[in-house]
């Protein structure tokens, strides 16, 4: 029998040193990647610890020469620091209110979004309610550019007197993150064997009971991932907050934009606020990291 591969077997032994070069290249690539993804944030952190004189210093330094916490202090007590920075920073306002707002609006909206999304996803997955149309339709809501949708919403909200109220933002946030809630939980619910639920039905459990004592505990992890992911989306949302808040319910990103646009170049406090505003989400992000993979694949990876 003629062997097609004979010329290949005759080939020389594998050259081992090649792998060392690969190893070096690979680690170079990995380190470059890490540098690329971490440098911008490191820079932000660096600025947030610099005194005003160093904000714009050229050549710039990565490590602050005279590190200071003033930038963080003024976020919450603008009247505190004295001197040059103090004088410039008097024009800012404490960020406490926006944090309080965000910590009310975002969790509530997230909760509503995930509950509605989860229940609907359950109906879609288990009973095919709405067929293929409904989940798709819900996904399209995610595609509306906020700027476009804000136009009519503004008039509608004015009629409902919902502008600049936490409830108004909660409804918007809950509504526009529904798509993710639905699609992510859908992926997780699909991972629950139908038979486990049917076993419970045959054991005599009512549909609600099945949902709450069997399905819910089983998708707990996924639900946590969804919740926290939606939390991130809501926490970082900017445009709706910019348009639909003014005095009472501004959120952290809007506050941030006030700082960014404020008089003078307050890079230090602006950076500090950026850092503070990112901490909750990044922390939560790490908590859900292992679920993100399954959550983002919308159940497509299970085949």
């Amino acid at each position, binding site marked *: 029998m003629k062997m097609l591969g004979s010329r290949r077997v005759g080939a020389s032994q594998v050259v081992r040193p090649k792998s060392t070069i690969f190893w070096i290249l690979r680690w170079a690539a990995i380190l470059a990647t890490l540098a690329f993804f971490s440098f911008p944030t490191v820079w932000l952190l660096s600025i947030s610890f610099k005194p005003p004189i160093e904000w714009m210093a050229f050549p710039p330094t990565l490590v602050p020469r005279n590190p200071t916490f003033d930038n963080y202090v003024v976020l919450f007590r603008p009247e505190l620091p004295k001197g040059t920075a103090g004088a410039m920073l008097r024009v800012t306002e404490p960020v406490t209110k926006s944090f309080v707002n965000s910590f009310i609006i975002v969790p509530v909206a997230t909760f509503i979004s995930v509950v509605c999304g989860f229940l609907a996803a359950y109906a879609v997955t288990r009973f095919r309610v709405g067929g293929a149309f409904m989940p798709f339709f819900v996904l399209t809501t995610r595609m509306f550019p906020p700027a476009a949708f804000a136009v009519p919403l503004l008039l509608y909200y004015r009629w409902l007197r919902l502008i600049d109220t936490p409830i108004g933002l909660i409804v918007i946030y809950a509504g526009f993150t529904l798509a993710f809630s639905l699609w992510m939980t859908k992926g997780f619910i699909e991972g629950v*064997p139908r*038979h486990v639920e049917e076993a*419970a*039905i*045959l054991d005599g459990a009512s549909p609600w009971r099945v949902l709450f004592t*069997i399905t819910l505990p089983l998708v707990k992890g996924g639900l946590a991932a969804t919740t926290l992911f939606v939390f991130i989306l809501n926490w970082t949302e900017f445009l709706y907050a910019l348009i639909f808040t003014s005095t009472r319910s501004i959120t952290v990103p809007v506050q941030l934009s006030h700082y960014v646009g404020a008089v003078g170049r307050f890079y230090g406090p602006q950076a500090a606020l950026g850092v503070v505003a990112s901490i909750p989400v990044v922390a939560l992000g790490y908590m859900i990291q292992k679920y993100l993979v399954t959550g983002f694949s919308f159940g497509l990876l299970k085949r």
Partner: protein
Amino acid sequence: MASVEVKNVKKTFGKVVALNRLSFKIEDAELFGLLAPPGAGKTTVLRIIAGLERPEEGEVLIGGHVVNDVPPQLRDVAMVFEDVALYPHLTGFENIAYPLRLRKLPRSEIERRVKETAKLLHVEHLLGRKPNTFSGGERRRVAIARALVRRPRVLLLDQPFTDLDAKIRQEMTAELKKLQTDVKQTMVLATHDFEEAMIADRIAIMHNGEIQQIAPPREVYDRPATTFVAEFVGSPAMNLFECRVETRQGGTQFLHDGFTFTLIGRYLPGVSKVVLGIRPEKIVHVEGGPVRAQVEVIQVLGEEGIVDLKLPDGTRFKWLVGEQELHMLDRGMELPFVFPSTELHFYDGETGVRLCLFDKGNEEE
């Protein structure tokens, strides 16, 4: 405990007819086997009995009452699913206790019953653990315990031992049989493995949504009602040969491309084509036998061997031989065989239905 009756049940999925006017009755405390190849609708039957699917036509009766409109929660039917379906987030104990908790039994009572059932199925050591630490066999046991703990009127077992390895499967099957004798529970065992089904009191064999035969296991094996059953039950499967039949003076002649032989004094009236069946273990190698075949492949199974034989026309069939004869065989040998007339099965060439031989042919007059 209760009897179950399925009357004229029809179920279609899209255009596929899964169940075509199915009827059978399961007696109280019977172990009923439902044997069919995968995809033949066994699971659908169980799900219809459980109430998880609605039949399009026909009725399901449990304990003599029509339950078509009773939701599954109220039917008091338990089912062990093919994939076991234990509650992954609950411990062994909580899994078994779940149906009891739903019924709001007192704590002490629940504990007593769970322990009792666990003992019956030898799973006491699993009560404190989560299902993901169980082995395949252990999962089945716990699942059965969960189904049994509330003594349902009917216990449905959907291919309960499929993915277990052969050794454990055989063990579990034997145990299930013993359990059934002990607890006298109405059980339906659906499986595609005839060896598993053989422990049942009666077996129903399904094919294409229809029932082919309902009979005790031995009868199913000895007198398969159709060619399908004949081929499906037994390992290695029964050899089937399509033959033309000619009724001759004094007997019936069977004409196959690979052989021809005559049965003296037996008649098959009214058919011209039959399917002739013989189990591989019943074939006898005799010098001067009418069927000559060539040895193709020899597969040794310890004490016995399966020999693939080839007829002159290329038709292949199997022969099960003992150890002694096995040694004498070699590839390429041509051997004569006899199909003993008492071991032959006859089926209508068109419909595949079992035929009876008559000692006297009708044409004789």
